């Protein structure tokens, strides 16, 4: 089936946004995106506060590319990873992985605004354009020649909706390459009762056909047992919470996330690995709703790789780079 329906639905939404027909629960996040650059209404100057975790800061320097520092690689964090307490852990894991692979990287900090991925798909085109134009300027000013992100929504926006920005890579692609090159060395899984399954995030899998890189990374971890859910890869199943759906309470008989967690259990898994902050929020929530706490856990690919690598392997060249930056 090659029926492309998303563009049509987005067009319909654009019409509704122009007529002011927007659910009340979504008006506040949209207004906050306009005035603060994030849907939570949090202060823009606190966007990089996730790096200020004391234990993290001592072991992993994250440069803010605000003119005082330069770097080869820009880590584009996006809003959910910048502000959500739980998801900030994915940001710290991603930074540690970049450092352990010897990457000279930095973030935009307060100069970053939401990628606008959800805003565009919601149909608020002019707000998307304002966010995009701001980010393109900030990215160009950073001087970085490549972008890495751990958020498939940001990845999709930077890759397809932005122009005149450096090439972008999802962290799963970065890890797969560095593991093959031997720069990142993965330590064995200690707990042999764990059975892992990989959940394909929509904007990594079906929209960008990145199915193999995350699986290659999992299979490169010594001793890791992995099973596939019956619905996977291009037949995968949405977690139910893409984009602004996080701020909207849909009326549904069954949450998609719960169904997905049940699919993982049917496959014989007790750990769901995903590679998207939105999937993480929904799947962790769904595990609770399904009453499967203690029986099923969820982990982001970056968090898993962070736990299976350590700072010992940071080469002296890398340490020098970080130290003099």
């Amino acid at each position: 089936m090659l029926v492309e329906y998303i563009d049509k639905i987005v067009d319909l939404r654009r019409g509704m946004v122009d007529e002011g027909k927007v659910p009340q629960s979504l008006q506040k996040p949209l207004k906050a995106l306009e005035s603060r650059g994030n849907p939570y209404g949090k202060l823009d100057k606190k966007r990089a506060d996730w790096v200020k975790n004391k234990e993290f800061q001592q072991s992993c320097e994250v440069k803010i590319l605000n003119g005082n520092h330069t770097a080869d690689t820009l880590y584009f964090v996006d809003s959910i990873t910048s502000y959500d307490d739980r998801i900030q852990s994915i940001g710290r894991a991603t930074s540690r992985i970049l450092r352990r692979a010897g990457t000279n990287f930095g973030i935009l900090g307060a100069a970053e605004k939401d990628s606008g991925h959800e805003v565009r798909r919601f149909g608020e085109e002019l707000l998307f354009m304002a966010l995009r134009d701001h980010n393109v300027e900030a990215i160009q000013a950073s001087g970085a020649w490549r972008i890495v992100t751990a958020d498939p929504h940001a990845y999709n926006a930077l890759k397809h909706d932005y122009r005149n920005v450096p090439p972008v890579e999802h962290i799963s692609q970065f890890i797969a390459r560095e593991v093959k090159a031997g720069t990142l060395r993965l330590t064995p899984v200690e707990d042999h009762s764990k059975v892992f399954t990989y959940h394909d995030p929509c904007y990594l899998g079906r929209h960008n056909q990145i199915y193999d890189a995350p699986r290659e990374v999992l299979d490169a971890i010594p001793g890791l047992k992995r099973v596939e859910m019956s619905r996977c890869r291009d037949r995968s199943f949405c977690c139910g919470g893409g984009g602004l759906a996080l701020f909207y309470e849909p009326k549904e008989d069954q949450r998609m996330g719960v169904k997905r967690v049940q699919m993982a259990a049917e496959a014989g898994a007790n750990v769901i690995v995903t590679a998207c902050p939105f999937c993480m929020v929904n799947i962790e929530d769904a595990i609770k709703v399904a009453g499967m706490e203690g029986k099923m856990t969820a982990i982001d690919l970056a968090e898993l790789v962070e736990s299976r690598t350590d700072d010992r392997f940071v080469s002296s060249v890398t340490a020098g780079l970080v130290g003099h930056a």
Partner: protein
Amino acid sequence: MEILVCAKRVPDTSENEIELNRAGNDIERDDLVYSVNEPDNYAVEEALQIVDRAGGQVTVVTVGGDEDEEILRREMAMGAHHGVLLSDEAFNGSDGKGIATILKAFVEKGHYDLILTGVQAEDAGAQVGGMLAAMLDYPFASLVNSIEVQDGGTLKISREIEGGNKEMNAIDLPCVLSIQTGINEPRYVGMRGIRQVASRTIPVFDASGLGVSEDAVGKAAAKVKRVDYFVPAAGKGAEMLAGSREEIIDRLIELMKAKGGLN
């Protein structure tokens, strides 16, 4: 029907972390984001729906400075036909009565059948609507949560009263109503809408243009003065219930009954 909606620009409570300043006599205003006082959006939406049914025009007015123009444009992007700014240095520091005095002078320059305000300003005390009505000698109803236009210059309105009950009233026009949130679902104002009204002219009236005596408004005339702000001391913390799910539920029901939350 000619409708006037009085609106205000306030710090947006959903997008700010409100903190006291060091002196403790005001909030820290440096990083604040301002927007339309949320209840005023409901008043504008209601006005727009009334003119959709009964014809007429909606004018939105605010008292303030150049920076307050943005909220007038936002309401014009919603569909209001006119925005008017009442601005004069003499107005600075006015209390509720001072603001009502300024608005009264503006109302008397035109012919409005109906005047709406939001139920309250998020940074103040729901006082201007009532005072404005008294000064104009118009009837007033607060907490209005439905409006029906009747024949013969009256409105049928309901007011929210204790316990979620409604009180139905007939009220003669012209009148002043303060609009309760939830009366409608205010439409969204997108970037396109704001751009479309960006170049519209917004008339500005000062004290002499309105015929307001400078002695009657501003800081000197204010009889209500803010003397302090403080963060209330934290009360006793939450009580965590322990035990099995059934025990917790039993204990919770017991507590709710004891505190009058369940009958």
